[in-house]
């Protein structure tokens, strides 16, 4: 069963665009030892593995903890704490065989109980873990024996092993899951390749090699220092100066700046990461599909790619799926059409356009750029857009999921199902658009329980077509995921998911500066 599943996922990775600069074969055999300095662009305020929310935090918990499965660069699941898995034919019951002899950082043994209790904690509403809606429709979870767990799902779910690799589905000790759940906010106890040395959320997080890691070969590094750089241009400067070795997330402008600097490797991978303009589909005037479509037709997507990604991206077609995903449908690319847009607006009862306030949070900056660009483009069809920016925290508090016209920003998800169920179905974790389209829901639900590849492709194609027609949100552009490293860093592959880093595969070459 395991084989079949793997093949199933590998089959869909043709769309993945390999980083041109990267060539794994050329790399020398990894040498053990050394300290890697990695930068993150915002504070890692939360290191509780079940409660993290942003990429820098995922980076840290990934080092300290393990999931049952891991997400490879090609978006398929590989074994982590689970050595192998299989499911019943209906895809409703999944059995996972656990690795033996694994120990937590405090030397306690890892068993099936830990897995069971972790998932109970994830599913416990009071713990408010973001993973609750993202690990699949788990009904029950039981430990068959100390090294076997069985998940019973409430519905068929083909992508379940991939879902278990979710960034907040890290395995924690049963004692923590059932006891003082909050204690992992300030300390760490996982089975990950590194152990926590020190944690200053706004400055520096230091981890060191876990000698008891289940894979004796990895990690290669002795120590990783994760430095916080709130200012992206300072981050770039630090890489040039050699103060840091690796920038985990790079802005397009910094990419342009660093490109050509000596001793640097610029990393780039096409991705399904996108910015969208969300409409509250239950709120005037956006409850009228003609209005939404008119705005979508006002967007010059090529210019948008240029403005918001500096060319490091691809035009979007108002669905969250692009060629980086399996099951991406071939739809006609929507182009700007002012006349058509004006006609739609007039039909909808706005011959003279209307005025609306578009909210964009300040992080990342592309949200504002997108808003400013849209403002200018919407002028063409007579729609006046007032841009309002706000600190990200305020945005999360006041606008996100509540507003009816704002800019969103999302990582690529491992699967099509992942992104649809995250944002666009009626039961989506973050149902921002309140599109609530029953036909769409039905298509997605049917697809996730369908084993047959062709049938599944057709279902997802219909879903995408439907979305493209109804435009619950404008998705004008997709971003490439960018990074940069010193050339003495090897074994680092930039991940299109943008929230997966796999630093346990990274090693330093002999040219790397020796750091005490």
């Amino acid at each position, binding site marked *: 069963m395991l084989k079949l599943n793997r093949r199933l996922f590998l089959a869909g990775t043709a769309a993945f665009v390999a980083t041109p600069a990267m060539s794994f074969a050329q790399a020398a055999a990894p040498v053990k030892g050394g300290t890697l300095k990695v930068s993150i662009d915002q504070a890692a305020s939360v290191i509780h593995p079940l409660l993290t929310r942003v990429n820098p935090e995922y980076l840290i918990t990934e080092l300290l903890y393990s999931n049952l499965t891991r997400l490879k660069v090609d978006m398929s699941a590989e074994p982590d704490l689970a050595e192998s898995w299989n499911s019943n034919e209906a895809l409703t019951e999944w059995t996972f065989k656990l690795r033996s002899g694994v120990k937590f950082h405090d030397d306690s043994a890892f068993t099936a109980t830990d897995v069971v209790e972790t998932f109970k904690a994830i599913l416990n509403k009071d713990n408010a873990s973001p993973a609750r809606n993202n690990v699949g429709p788990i009904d029950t979870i039981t430990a068959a024996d100390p090294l076997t767990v069985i998940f019973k799902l409430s519905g068929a779910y083909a992508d379940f092993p991939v879902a278990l690799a979710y960034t907040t589905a890290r395995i924690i000790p049963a004692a923590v899951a059932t006891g003082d759940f909050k204690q992992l906010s300030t300390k760490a106890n996982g089975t990950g390749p590194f152990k926590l040395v020190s944690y200053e959320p706004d400055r520096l997080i230091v981890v060191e090699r876990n000698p008891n890691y289940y894979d004796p070969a990895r990690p290669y590094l002795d120590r990783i220092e994760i430095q916080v750089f709130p200012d992206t241009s300072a981050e*770039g400067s630090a890489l040039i100066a050699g103060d840091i070795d690796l920038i985990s997330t790079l802005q397009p*402008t910094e990419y342009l700046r660093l490109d050509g600097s000596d001793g640097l490797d610029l990393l780039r991978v096409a991705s399904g990461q996108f910015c969208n303009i969300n409409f509250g589909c239950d709120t005037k005037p956006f409850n009228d599909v003609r209005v939404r479509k008119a705005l979508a037709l006002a967007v010059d997507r090529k210019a948008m790619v240029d*403005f918001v990604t500096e060319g490091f991206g691809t035009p979007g077609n108002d669905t969250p799926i692009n060629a980086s995903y399996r099951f991406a449908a071939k739809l006609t690319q929507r182009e700007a059409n002012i006349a058509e847009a004006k006609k739609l607006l007039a039909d909808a009862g706005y011959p003279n356009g209307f005025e609306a306030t578009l909210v964009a949070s300040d992080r990342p900056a592309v949200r504002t750029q997108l808003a400013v660009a849209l403002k*200018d483009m919407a002028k063409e069809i007579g729609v006046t857009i007032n*841009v309002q*920016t*706000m*600190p990200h925290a*305020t945005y999360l508090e006041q606008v996100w999921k509540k507003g009816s016209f704002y800019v969103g920003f999302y990582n690529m998800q491992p699967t099509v199902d992942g992104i649809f169920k995250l944002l666009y179905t009626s039961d989506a974790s973050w149902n921002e658009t309140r599109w609530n389209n029953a036909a769409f829901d039905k298509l997605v639900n049917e697809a996730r329980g369908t084993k047959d590849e062709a049938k599944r492709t057709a279902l997802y194609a219909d879903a995408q077509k439907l979305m493209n027609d109804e435009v619950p949100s404008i998705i004008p552009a997709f971003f490439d995921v960018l990074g940069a490293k010193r050339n003495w860093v090897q074994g680092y592959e930039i991940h299109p998911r943008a929230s997966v880093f796999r630093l346990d595969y990274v090693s330093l070459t002999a040219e790397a500066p020796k750091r005490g």
Partner: protein
Amino acid sequence: MTEFLKRLLRTPQGAIGVAIVGLVLLVVIIGPWVAPHDPESLAPLQRYKGSSLTYLLGTDQYGRDIFSRLLIGARATVIMAMLATLAGTVVGALIGTTSAFLGGRADEAIMRTIDAVMSIPSLLFALLVVNLLGSSIVNALVAVAVAFAPGMARITRSVALSVRKQDYINAAIARGESARFVIVREMLPNVIAPIIVEMTIRVSFAVMLFATLSFLGLGAQPPAAEWGLMVSEARRYMHLSAGILIWPSIAIALVAIGFNLLGDGLRDALNPRA
């Protein structure tokens, strides 16, 4: 008045200050008419251009003409800074004069409280206020005004107290003039001059404070051509085209220098001792 103007122009500070501030105010008034390009229209093909005859100071990250944006942004920047200073001054002057007029325990209580408020750095105070109200240029104005008010209250009070000690005030009181007359007709005209000096200098701080608030994402909103916002947006593109950052920076510094010089010139002109 002409004599005063002569004295103002006689000092180098006064002359340069008048020239710069005059130029800035001219731009404020006629800027939108003389701007050669639309400050908000995006031009995908004209991004990051250097100085040229078409684009005097080059173009920014959206291909907008920096020169036009500076001309138009002068209104947002300078007028807002002046309004904020004015608002802060009016509030501060009210508190200060009231305190000086009440005297005694009330005065002490008000002044100690003002001192206490002033122990919060004004930038921090402004940050808190904007955060409380939400970021917009109007709220930034309120924040700067609130941040300035305590300082102006202190200055007004000390000026008012020194005026209060003058014999012409004593004469008015001894004459049996009403409190309103004493404050409005006798004190106010003499309190205003030093306050105008202080205000002028503070406009330059307000310009900088605005820019800093915008830099921290709490001031004017894109795509406004406010100079501080322009600098803050430009920071990410400065490695692609330094002009995007440098020109608005120079504009801010120039306005700040202008008001500083003008303030010093006014002070000298009003104070024959110097």
